[in-house]
């Protein structure tokens, strides 16, 4: 009998470990399915309510009440001011969000502040500097998460208490909450930029700010602008909602009309809101195309 040409090696420990790892996706998938169906019960999802007598009646009342939408000149001219206010809130809210998000996003960019090839020469063998930079980075990141983890609705509630009713608390609420979101996404955009041109710029003796404006910003600009515009679109919607807690704009009118059961007015306002969001979307598409 001929000798086997190859000796069979026992499986190495690292391979066994690997095969345990291979079950992880199934484990996660199973867990997900479990959570998915469990949530049905816990979220009290009950589509049958739509078909109950009471549900049908109120749904019918709401829908028929909506038509025809209120289009009297009197009502429309009354809504013009709140509609403009909603736009104005969204513009200033987004502007404040950029002012908050841009510097914090910059300081929250790991490759700019602590890590990667741009900081090796400066921070290698300098634990004090590295610690300081790490501290700045973590502080910026935690501020950003704080700002965006509190919903703009809650911010508006707090600012209404602080500065009173009107559009201004709405502006502040959008500014802070969206500042947190913008800052986080900005830092991700900056981090995804190709680092080789940055390395070359820094090697000429440029400082970080110069590297940022010559290398980082030009490369990130298209994403930067289009995400900011997208957030503006969201801000139009959000500023309408914020009116519900007394922060001015169309939201306040929705709330009034709802309470008076004037559903035809609600529909008119919703159509106005739709047109405004569509207009902003169209405008930002035009701007993006120019880049």
């Amino acid at each position, binding site marked *: 009998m001929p000798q086997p040409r190859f000796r069979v090696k026992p499986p190495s420990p690292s391979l066994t470990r690997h095969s345990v790892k291979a079950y992880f996706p199934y484990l996660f998938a199973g867990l997900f399915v479990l959570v998915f169906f469990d949530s049905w019960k816990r979220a009290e999802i009950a589509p049958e309510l739509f078909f109950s007598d009471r549900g049908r009646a109120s749904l019918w009342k709401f829908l028929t009440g909506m038509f025809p939408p209120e289009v009297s000149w009197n009502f429309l001219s009354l809504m013009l001011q709140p509609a403009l206010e909603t736009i104005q809130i969204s513009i200033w809210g987004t502007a404040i969000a950029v002012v908050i998000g841009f510097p914090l996003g910059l300081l929250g960019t790991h490759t700019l502040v602590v890590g990667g090839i741009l900081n090796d020469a400066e921070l290698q063998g300098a634990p004090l*500097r590295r610690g300081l930079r790490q501290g700045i980075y973590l502080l910026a990141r935690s501020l950003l998460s704080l700002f965006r983890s509190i919903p703009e609705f809650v911010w508006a509630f707090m600012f209404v208490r602080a500065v009173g009713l009107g559009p201004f608390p709405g502006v502040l609420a959008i500014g802070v909450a969206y500042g947190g979101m913008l800052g986080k996404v900005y830092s991700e955009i900056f981090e995804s930029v190709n680092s080789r041109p940055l390395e070359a710029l820094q090697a*000429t003796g*440029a400082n970080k700010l110069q590297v940022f404006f010559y290398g980082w910003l030009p490369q990130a600009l298209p994403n930067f602008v289009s995400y900011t515009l997208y957030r503006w679109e969201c801000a139009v919607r959000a500023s309408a909602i914020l009116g519900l807690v007394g922060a001015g704009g169309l939201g306040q009118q929705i709330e009034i009309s709802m309470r008076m059961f004037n559903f035809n007015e609600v529909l008119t306002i919703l159509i106005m809101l739709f047109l405004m969001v569509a207009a902003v979307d169209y405008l930002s598409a035009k701007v993006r195309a120019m880049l």
Partner: protein
Amino acid sequence: MNSSLQQYRLESVRKEFGSQQVALDGIDLKIDQGEKVALIGPSGAGKTTLFRLLNCTLRPTSGKLYIDGEDVDLLHGQRLRQVRRRIGSVYQQHNLVPRLRVIHNVLAGQLGGWPTLRSLMSLCKPADVELAQSALTQVDIAEKIYERTDELSGGQQQRVAIARVLVQDPEVILADEPVSSVDPTLASSIVRLLIDISQSTRKTLLVSLHSVDLALAYFPRIVGIKQGRVTFDLSPDKIADDMLEDLYSGNFRDHAATEIPCETAQPVAYPSLS
């Protein structure tokens, strides 16, 4: 004074990434001012890491690196930027900012000398059009000055990168594989251009090359690097064929070991079958 003429001195320089990967494993090297040196060796040998140490992008993990007699371990902030300003770099992939116009990429060579505000204003209205123009004329693409950089061909972009170094006007030019992405005839013309520039202004020139023929043809000193170490450091007439063969031999295995740092590439220790 011999030491004042010394551009670079490296004493058992090591560079590690993480705890496992050793890119440079004890490099000793002296390069005098005005010397022209070619670096050759297989990919993954540590040439790019060496360049990044020489232009102060990276710092040695251990060992000493002196630039113009200055210990780089002591350089931080402003002083570090001043040293970087005196060293110009050309890269394999040009490393230009693609969305900027050519003139801004060229004038970026001046960033180390400009105050921040001035460099920002230059992005709106170029601060020194004549300087950029004359640099681009030297590399024969003056007509591209206002074009967007990503619209140029690979060879043209490499010329823009060289124009940036001309504007920077450094003491040292480091070029890491400057011609590996252009065709052979263009390659030798770019190498000649680098030599001309450094000759006329007495700059130190260090070029790493994929092509051994180009290195042997144009450079009086050749340094061979393999697995993070210097294997030879000679004039081209003293380099024998077997040295080159040795330099590139076993290339495939080294390549696999250095370029794929993942678990599966680690050698597995089998328990003995007794």
